[in-house]
């Protein structure tokens, strides 16, 4: 349809120009992270470092314990994702397969909570966590994020599309309801589950406001929090800052390249942003 308005070549040129603009910050980050200090501040800019200083990465690790931050991020991301997976499968099953009193009201109330921005819940949740004595613990970083209305809603929709006859057949064969859920329903919903949990992993890995509020000590910092603190610790050493930023960004880029299909399809289908 645009064919006659814009020529093929123009489209390719415009798209490539846009792609360059999208990639430029990443290229610049990697390039700076491998430079010697004198090349970092060179004008005109040096695009390819004359000598590749991989030491910048070890140097950054010496200034701040990014290995520790990395492990924290991995723990928080994995545990909260597995937690959400379990609570979501169980709750979505109840909402899609069991008739019970108050079901529609309970579901409507849960959906209603989705309209409230999570930033609004920050203060009361902080108070709850301090009453529980959880401030500055892994529990504070993980437990509140082990259930999501959005994930339950999405999986419930998916479960509703699975034929009911399957559960009748399973019952006749003497399969318990619980086993049926874990060995039949959940595996059938794999595409939906992978999509939901991948977005969960991305959000959890990149989360910032929540972790800076509920943790104080350096030992509990996740990568984004550690990186933010690093801006003052590293001073104006941009090569170290860029090396540290790469360490935060790369794991998600790798995950994205591997699981691209699911992430893109998931966003397109559901339009979810976290």
């Amino acid at each position, binding site marked *: *349809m*645009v064919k*006659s*308005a814009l020529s093929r070549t123009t*489209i390719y040129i415009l*798209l490539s120009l846009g792609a360059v*603009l*999208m990639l430029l910050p990443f290229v*610049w*980050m990697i390039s*700076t992270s491998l430079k010697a200090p004198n090349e970092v501040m060179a*004008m005109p*800019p040096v695009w390819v470092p004359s000598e590749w200083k991989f030491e910048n990465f070890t140097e950054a690790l010496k200034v701040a314990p990014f290995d520790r931050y990395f492990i924290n991020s991995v723990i928080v991301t994995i545990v909260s994702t597995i937690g959400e997976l*379990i*609570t979501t499968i*169980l*709750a979505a*099953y109840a*909402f899609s397969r*069991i*008739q*019970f*009193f108050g*079901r529609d009201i309970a579901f409507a109330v849960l959906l209603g*909570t989705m309209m*409230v*921005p999570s*930033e*609004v*819940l*920050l*203060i*009361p*949740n902080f*108070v*709850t966590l301090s009453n529980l004595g959880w401030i500055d613990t892994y529990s504070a970083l993980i*437990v*509140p994020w082990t259930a999501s209305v959005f994930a339950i809603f999405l999986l419930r929709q998916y479960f509703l599309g699975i034929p009911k006859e399957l559960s009748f057949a399973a*019952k006749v064969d003497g399969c318990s309801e619980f086993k049926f859920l874990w060995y039949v329903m959940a595996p059938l919903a794999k595409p939906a589950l992978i999509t939901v949990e991948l977005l969960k992993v991305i959000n959890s*890995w*990149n989360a*910032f*406001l929540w972790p800076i*509020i509920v943790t104080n000590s350096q030992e509990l910092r996740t*990568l984004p929090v550690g*990186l*933010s603190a690093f*801006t003052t610790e590293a001073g104006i050493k941009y090569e170290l800052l*860029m090396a540290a*930023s790469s360490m*935060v960004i790369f794991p*998600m*880029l790798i*995950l*994205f390249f591997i699981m*691209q299909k699911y992430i*893109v399809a998931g*966003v397109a289908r559901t*339009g979810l*942003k976290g």
Partner: protein
Amino acid sequence: MMDKPTWKSTLRAFLYLLPALLILIVFNIYPIIKSFLMSLYTDYDFYNDVVYEYGLSNFSDIFQDPNFIKAIVNTTVFVIGVVPVSIVLSLAIAIMLNSKIKALSFFRTIYFLPFVTSVVAVAIVWGWIFHSDYGLLNYFLGFFGIDPIEWLTDPTYSMPALIILSVWKGLGFNIIIFLAGLQNINKQYYLAAQVDGASAWHRFLSVTIPLLSPTMFFISIISIINAFKVFDEIFALFNGRPGPANSTLTVVYYVYQKFYEEWEFGLASAAAFVLFIIVFLFTLIQLSLGKKFVHYQ
């Protein structure tokens, strides 16, 4: 097998729901009510969890606070700066990507990359690009004879810097949604328009735009709501400050300051409640406008 709810089935469902409900009630539902109540705390002792007095003075206080007014104005400017630009750009890119080009998935991947990356990390990278002496942006602008701009220290340019970063970060998400919307449009409409002799521009205006309106409507709501909640970008771009001379102080940043820096829980909750109302109103306005203008296929 399960046509009518019974007490037995209710108990069974409750057991399945228990883990999720426990978390959601404690960390999602209770805090909604608590947040509203806390905005009415005018005299309280947070450490001992005692409230001596309730009232509306937190709301009158924040609306008399020039910083809060500034936060609302800044947030509005941010929304107006980001949302239309992002929608126009992403729609244009999506349309180009949808014109049966080769390497579609290659381009889609690149445009989508920023979406999966940490806001804090990319804001730090952009902070380096915005550097007034050694930053790439000023270097490129130099080619056009533009003098170096103090992007992050001049209050006039801090908001544009924040907007540039946010548009870049959010573009890919909108493109994916627009692409899905475009692919849903039945090709026959274009054929029919072509037979009637409609020009490409005409087809765009009278086929693409109306049929894409549900998607645009959806993206607008999400973009506006997300723009109202901006925080991470600012914190990372301006080293834990809301920009020079509070020039990028937004509503969420104001909540953060009152809450985490000044420990004024009542005022912070009142500001958070105002944020909630704004987001809620926008959703309602968009929903009612949407019904009038949106064409569903």
